[in-house]
């Protein structure tokens, strides 16, 4: 491995130490440098914001991290399915709601919430396979729109089935009440909705990483997401991979739903209300890329929560006197989504398609200003988007 990636040629006669095999590859070193630069920038931004807004921004950042961890769990599930089956699952939010309600039902009937979450995790996995077998396998090869329509139908059935069975009331999970743990005055974190959510999110990220990088199934999943035909030709059982993707996707949805219900309340529309956030995370990260989804989820969740002080500042009458400023925080992921669609439709971490130009719009605008016309507007690679 080290020989393959070592940047300097191995001089003859030199004796490799036994730890040479563990030397990081060039790619990994590059990523490490990028990550540390990103970390430094993030820390700098946060400290600058703390300087401007005070300690409260750290509280919002903490809230953003919690939201991000939920979004990341959901976005990994969505993007795995998106990459392998090639369609946007609009029922994903409602699958989250279903998972939350299953856990709620079990925990109201005497089980602890943890067992409820585990059972709902397993049940949702079966639901995912059933969805593929009954509906979505028949829509293969018919383009992106028919599966979207069918998934919206699934979502409507789940949402309104829950409404007619469980009513529209808000439910709260039966968890022991706890006080915020105060780190410094003005900055605290709740042990259940904060720390537990963060830990579960981290555990899911790590397990997704292990699954994708260190197992044969994960390798097959990445290959299938990359190129279905080639994966088939190399002898990968893509049918099995598809089922695995549904299992991963739906069970992650269940856990994300339970976490979401822990943070707020369990309502029939809780999943549909956050679907925009999750789609933004998936597209910002690059469709089909779980690592991109993690990055996108972090970006989207943090920016949504940390925009609140700014929006509250806008509420002041001497600024523009906006009413209910913090309600608009939901628009922030949308703005990020549009910016990414304009400048980098294949996502932050996604791979750039072969013929894509760096920024379509800037090129177009300069061409219009320059008066040059008649060139072909879109290339084949761009017409296929970020894939």
């Amino acid at each position, binding site marked *: 491995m080290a020989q393959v990636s070592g940047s300097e040629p191995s001089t003859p006669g030199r004796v490799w130490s036994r730890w040479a095999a563990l030397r990081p590859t060039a790619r990994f070193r590059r990523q490490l440098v990028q990550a540390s630069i990103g970390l430094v920038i993030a820390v700098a931004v946060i400290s600058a914001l703390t300087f401007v807004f005070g300690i409260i921004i750290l509280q919002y950042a903490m809230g953003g991290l919690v939201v991000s961890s939920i979004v990341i769990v959901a976005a990994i599930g969505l993007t795995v399915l998106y990459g392998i089956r090639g*369609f*946007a699952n*609009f029922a994903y939010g409602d699958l989250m709601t279903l998972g939350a309600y299953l856990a709620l039902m079990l925990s109201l009937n005497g089980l602890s919430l943890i067992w409820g979450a585990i059972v709902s995790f397993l049940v949702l996995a079966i639901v995912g396979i059933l969805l593929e077998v009954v*509906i979505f396998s*028949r*829509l293969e090869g*018919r*383009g*992106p*729109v*028919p599966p*979207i*329509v*069918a998934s*919206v*139908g*699934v*979502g*409507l*059935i789940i*949402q*309104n*089935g829950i*409404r*007619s069975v469980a*009513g*529209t009331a808000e439910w709260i999970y039966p968890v022991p009440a706890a006080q915020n743990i105060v780190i410094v005055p003005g900055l605290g974190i709740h042990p259940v909705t904060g720390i537990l959510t963060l830990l579960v999110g981290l555990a899911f990220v790590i397990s997704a990483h292990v699954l994708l990088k260190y197992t044969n199934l994960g390798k097959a999943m990445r290959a299938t997401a990359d190129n279905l035909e080639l994966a088939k030709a190399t002898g990968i059982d893509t049918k099995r991979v598809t089922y695995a993707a549904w299992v991963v996707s739906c069970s992650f949805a269940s856990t994300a739903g339970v976490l979401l219900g822990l943070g707020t309340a369990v309502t029939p529309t809780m999943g*549909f209300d956050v*679907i*925009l956030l999750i*789609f*933004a995370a998936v*597209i910002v990260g690059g469709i089909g890329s779980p690592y991109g989804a993690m990055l996108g989820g972090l970006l989207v969740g943090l920016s949504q929560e940390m925009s609140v002080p700014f929006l509250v500042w806008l509420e002041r009458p001497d600024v523009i006197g906006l*009413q*209910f400023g913090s*309600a*608009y925080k*939901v*628009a922030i*992921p*949308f703005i990020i*989504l*549009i910016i990414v*669609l*304009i400048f980098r*439709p294949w996502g932050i971490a996604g791979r750039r398609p072969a013929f894509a130009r760096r920024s*379509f*719009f800037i090129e177009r605008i300069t061409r219009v200003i320059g008066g040059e016309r008649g060139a*072909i*507007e*879109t290339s*084949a690679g*761009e*017409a*296929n*988007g*970020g*894939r």
Partner: protein
Amino acid sequence: MASTGSGEVAKQMAGRKLPWSEIIAFVAIAGIVLAGVLAGVLAGASPQGILTNVGFYASIAVIFAVLALGFNLQWGYTGLFNAGIAGFYLIGAYTMAIAITAPAPPIVIGGIPVYPGHLGGYSLPLAVGAILAMFASGAAAAIIALPALRLRADYLAIATLAFASILQIFANNLQSVTGGAIGITGIPKPIEFVSADAPFLNASTIVGIGSAILLVLILLLQFMAESPWGRVLRAVREDEEATMALGKNTFNYKLQAFALGGALMGLAGALFAVTLGYVSPSSSFAPTVTFSVWVMVIVGGSGNNRGAIVGAFLIYGMEWLSVQLKDLVPQNPLVLPPDLQGFATFIVLIGVVVTLTGLLYIVTGWGLLKLRMWAWWLTVIASIVSIVSQLTQFVVVPAYGFPYLIVLPISLLVYFRWVRPTFMQARAVSASSSNESLPPGPPSFPKRTPSMTPRRPVGVTVLGVLAILFGFLAVPGGLVVLAAFGFIVRDTIFYIRIMIIGVLLILLILHRPEGILREKKRVLG
């Protein structure tokens, strides 16, 4: 298109079968209206009220038809999938409301703001308001489509869905422009009536205006679809890269089609604002609107303007009927003997089974010839079950069971006239074909005599429509019974309706993506 000369027309018509599916659709619409009227009569509404209700149905259905035409232009003709119909609808409605209302200053009573006021108060004429609404929605559609249009279809769907939900948040919170949760009230009517039957007159005015607009629109859209411009749109839908290779700037064509479709949705929103007399960020602009419009267009067959309009009347009819049926439910639950409780639940389950069977029939278009054995048994069970359910419903509450007395002989007639003969024929065909495969020897071309060619399963379609009608009556009827006895809340009727829309979406996209009211395949060029 059609050449002149009556002889030519007669020759064209000679070989053509009657458009059964459309006839059935019109019968179904009439059935929905009749059922609604019946529900009104049973609920004890005045004739005036019932007429107003029917007028309301027609006016909102016309609005949905305009929405469906806009979506059909985007998806059916050009293949651009819009998941934010409700957003463009909202823009149209609010633009119209802001443009044509009188000024409304904020109201503060005792230091407490009661009404935040809203932007506008320009008191413009209605037509100007409608044009502004179209312009605003079209511009919004163009802007939102600009980044997403060059990408795959699902990017556009996600971007528009996000746009619609953001718009609803803005409508709710941007009080200085939209009036907040209260919305904008006091939108002037086209003609102000002062007499006692003003609601009915208002509804009929709107129906008149809406129908005129609809007529103009459908003529215009048909003309546009047949023009070179429309041909390019269809070429883009079929194969964008080939169209590009032929030297067409597909991006511009797509942008035009999307913006025009958005403008039509804005027009629908303007009509809606005038019809209701107020706009508020309520369920009128919820994502469910978008999904209903999808169903309307898919039922009619995407790319089929007539079908979109018929679909709008059918699907909105379902919604309207569920509202009418909800009014039948008494506010205070009746007391039911315990042994009848299970009975009532049973009825609802049966209704669901019958509806689903009907949907399966009409949507899959399976002739009985193509049915497997289990499906045949499903038919038998569903038929028996439907008859039983009708009888039980009649026993439990005679008034609710009344429609079934009419439906029962019809179902028997359908069974003996179409279902059974078709099945016998199917058995004969399968028997003969199995015989044909038996004898060994040199392979020969299978002989297909005219008697063996499968009959067009008109009966199945009729059966399917009737089953759906039963279902429309049996499900809500059973739900009304259940709600009357306090088992479920009244709103469950609505949830079941939306679930049926979901089932329709899945079944249609799986089995009849070209729609129930099929258009003849057109050749490009």
